């Protein structure tokens, strides 16, 4: 057994009904450092281009970070990887909670699920004993009931669980994998992939050890990183007090809080959906394993129409997606919507996006009353939001079932120009950032291999919110324009740096929010040191960054192997190229030419072919990815 990691991986073949415990190969560990990296390489090696994401040939991979189960700060993260049914491209979706330590204590760094069961099953991992069990009585149940019954059946209310709800069973394209009843691996439809395999849940109990190669040294680095985050007043106080919605009011003031499906960026009465209001009235902090930031919330509604509602969150993304983006500021209805998404097992970002898309279709008169079964789809209708969430998850009625396919397919089916305001690219609904106001985000969202959102990199430094962060942005960008958010200059450098940092963070299994909420406290250097002292495998700061770049590049290769070109891969929703009335005095801030310029500079910086965006063979060799090149006809 190795140190830091377990060095073992659980392979589950649902078609054959077989489980196998295999060692992880040393080159995979050294070359990818855990979590997202190992998952990405496994997905690459296990798949051929063109496979059906909902077919048995799509593997579903759960990978803990290499520092999971230790006291490294914020090390409770896990990456779920597969081919996405929403985009038909690469998908990694990352999730916190408390499952990671138990899985490692049970003796596994990760799980790869292959094939498809002919009946509903769940996986029970009790230390080294692994069983595929019948899940007939769980099928059809929501995630909360599933969690409860699993604990009851196993007879231990402290086991850790992950599961899908009805949305995953019904192959909703944005079905989430819920980890405990609180946390979601939400994006890209991993829940539908799990549903396609007839896998309802995984339950874990771990009581073994994770050993550390150099305990004294590890302790020193890990605890000093914890203190550094805790002492970062700006980051810690706001995150602890107000959660991820700490910046919602600021976004609104700057005119970039998505409103009415990104038609503008200002919401009257936004206070009612702010982190301040929610935290003061409804919620208290809740945290993933080993967390120092505590951005998580547990919210409860104790009176009124939605009394009895409780939910983890709401996150900024949920408050904007189910809230302002649909013109809704009824806090309690949003909490109800959040609860429904969690128990039905759906991504709140995409679910809210489908509602706001439907509302804009209605605004423009593209839907007949029969089509929408008399639903009142006017902006601000909380009832419509809640009704559609329920119906999409169960695919009730033709209209909701169409929406359950995601906004690309829904807009292509509805037609009549609705493609222009489907806020999606590559088939994934954009997260709640108006990238028209921030060029780093625009570039990063276009490049993100899974589609336009903030979780492959979030260049908060661009905003320069403290003098220290401002200086960092200028240093990374190599120009003062790094903190001029409408200038394209310095942005490729900013994005590449942040992408590498995020990728490394996901490999070691630390939460990426530490990267950009507490800049410099978690960095290439101390992550490399924590990995080295935990595992005894020496990795330098430079090597650690190179692993980040290797992972980003491999993810790029996966998408190129699917036969797509840069014109299909590096794209943004059409609306992002229109002017927003609440940004830059209503002037247009982003044009296709401006994005192209940033992209080409980025390709060059990455050592990719400047016109095609394909990594050169030379670059691949330097990253030890030689011979893996995908489609180079692009």
């Amino acid at each position, binding site marked *: 057994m190795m140190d830091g990691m377990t060095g073992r991986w659980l392979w589950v073949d649902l078609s054959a009904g077989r489980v196998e415990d295999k060692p992880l190969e040393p080159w995979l560990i050294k070359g990818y450092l855990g979590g997202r990296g190992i998952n990405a390489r496994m997905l690459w090696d296990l798949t051929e281009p063109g496979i059906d994401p909902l077919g048995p040939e799509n593997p579903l991979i759960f990978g803990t970070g290499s520092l999971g189960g230790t006291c490294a700060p914020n090390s409770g993260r896990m990456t779920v990887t597969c081919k996405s049914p929403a985009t038909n491209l690469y998908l990694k979706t990352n999730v916190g909670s408390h499952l990671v330590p138990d899985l490692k204590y049970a003796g596994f760094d990760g799980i790869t699920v292959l094939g498809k069961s002919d009946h509903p099953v769940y996986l029970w991992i009790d230390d080294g004993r692994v069983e595929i069990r019948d899940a007939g009585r769980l099928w059809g149940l929501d995630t909360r009931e599933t969690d409860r019954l699993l604990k009851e059946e196993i007879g231990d209310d402290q086991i850790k669980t992950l599961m899908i709800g009805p949305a995953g069973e019904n192959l909703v394209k944005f079905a989430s994998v819920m980890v405990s009843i609180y946390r979601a691996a939400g994006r890209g439809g991993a829940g539908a992939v799990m549903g396609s395999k007839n896998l309802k849940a995984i339950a874990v109990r771990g009581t073994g050890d*994770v050993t*550390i190669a150099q305990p004294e040294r590890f302790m020193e680095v890990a605890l000093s990183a*914890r203190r550094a985050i805790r002492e970062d007043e700006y980051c810690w106080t706001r995150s602890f007090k107000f959660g991820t919605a700490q910046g919602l009011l600021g976004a609104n003031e700057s005119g970039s809080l998505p409103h009415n499906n990104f038609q503008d960026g200002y919401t009257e009465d936004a206070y009612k959906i702010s982190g301040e209001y929610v935290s003061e009235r409804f919620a208290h902090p809740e945290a993933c394993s080993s967390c*120092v930031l505590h951005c998580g919330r*547990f919210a409860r509604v104790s009176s009124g129409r939605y009394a009895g509602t409780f939910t983890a969150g709401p996150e900024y993304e949920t408050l904007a997606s189910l809230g302002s983006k649909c013109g809704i500021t009824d806090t309690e209805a949003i909490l109800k919507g959040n609860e429904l998404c969690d128990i039905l097992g759906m991504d709140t970002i995409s679910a809210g996006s489908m509602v706001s898309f439907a509302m804009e279709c209605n605004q423009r008169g593209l839907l007949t009353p029969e089509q929408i079964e008399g639903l009142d789809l006017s902006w601000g209708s909380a009832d419509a939001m809640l009704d559609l969430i329920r119906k999409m998850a169960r695919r009730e009625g033709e209209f909701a079932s169409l929406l359950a396919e995601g906004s690309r397919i829904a807009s292509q089916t509805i037609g009549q120009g609705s493609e222009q305001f489907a806020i999606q690219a590559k088939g994934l609904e954009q997260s709640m950032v108006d990238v028209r106001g921030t060029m780093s985000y625009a570039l990063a969202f276009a490049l993100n291999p899974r589609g336009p959102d903030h979780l492959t990199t979030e260049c908060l430094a661009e905003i320069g919110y403290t003098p220290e962060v401002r200086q960092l942005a200028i240093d990374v960008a190599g120009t003062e324009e790094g903190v001029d958010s409408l200038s394209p200059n310095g942005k490729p450098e900013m994005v590449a740096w942040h992408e590498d940092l995020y990728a490394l963070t996901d490999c070691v299994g630390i939460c990426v929010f530490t990267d950009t909420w507490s800049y410099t406290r978690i960095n290439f250097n101390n992550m490399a040191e924590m990995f080295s002292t935990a595992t005894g495998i020496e990795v330098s700061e430079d090597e650690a960054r190179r692993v980040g770049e290797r992972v980003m590049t491999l993810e790029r290769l996966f998408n190129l192997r699917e036969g797509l070109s840069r014109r299909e891969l590096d794209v943004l929703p059409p609306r992002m190229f229109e002017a927003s009335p609440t940004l830059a005095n209503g002037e247009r801030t982003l044009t296709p030419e401006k994005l192209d310029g940033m992209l080409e500079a980025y390709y060059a910086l990455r050592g990719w072919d400047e016109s095609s965006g394909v990594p050169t063979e030379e670059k691949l060799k330097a990253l030890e990815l030689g011979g893996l090149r995908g489609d180079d006809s692009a």
Partner: protein
Amino acid sequence: MKSNEQERMKLVVDPDKCTGCNSCMLICSFVHDKKFNYERSRIRVWRDDARGIFIPVVCEQCEDAPCIQVCPTGALYRDEAGRVVRNATRCIGCNECMNVCPFGAISFGPDQQWMKCDACASVGGDPYCAQYCTAGALTWVPERLIARQKAGGAAARKAAAATGGGGR
């Protein structure tokens, strides 16, 4: 209290503040056993996800400690700092202390070792769990100030409730 006397300190748990991050368990396991394993932790956070409740359970160093009373060999005793500790050579491993503890705060670990919170006396320094409890649910407080601290917290919650705030 005389000024030259060592002040008696106590580990105080405020479950209302606990966020369930389990950092205390991870750090406890590691500082004592140099390994990470919840089963090696002397403190345990009990979770009730459905109610959003997280409760750290740890030795309360009881004044009238049932474990000391029940110990047939006199292995358990109270040290000068007020902690309930064990003389390993006298212990016969009979489990009576574990059975009688109302908090489940005494256990036998994965190596069959007797385990109970010693407020980090054996590893030197103030309790690590309290040092690294981000949320302030675990604090290391002079005994004479415990009631003051608790009453202050309760009053603040009442005040918040009276003005319409307060999540729980």
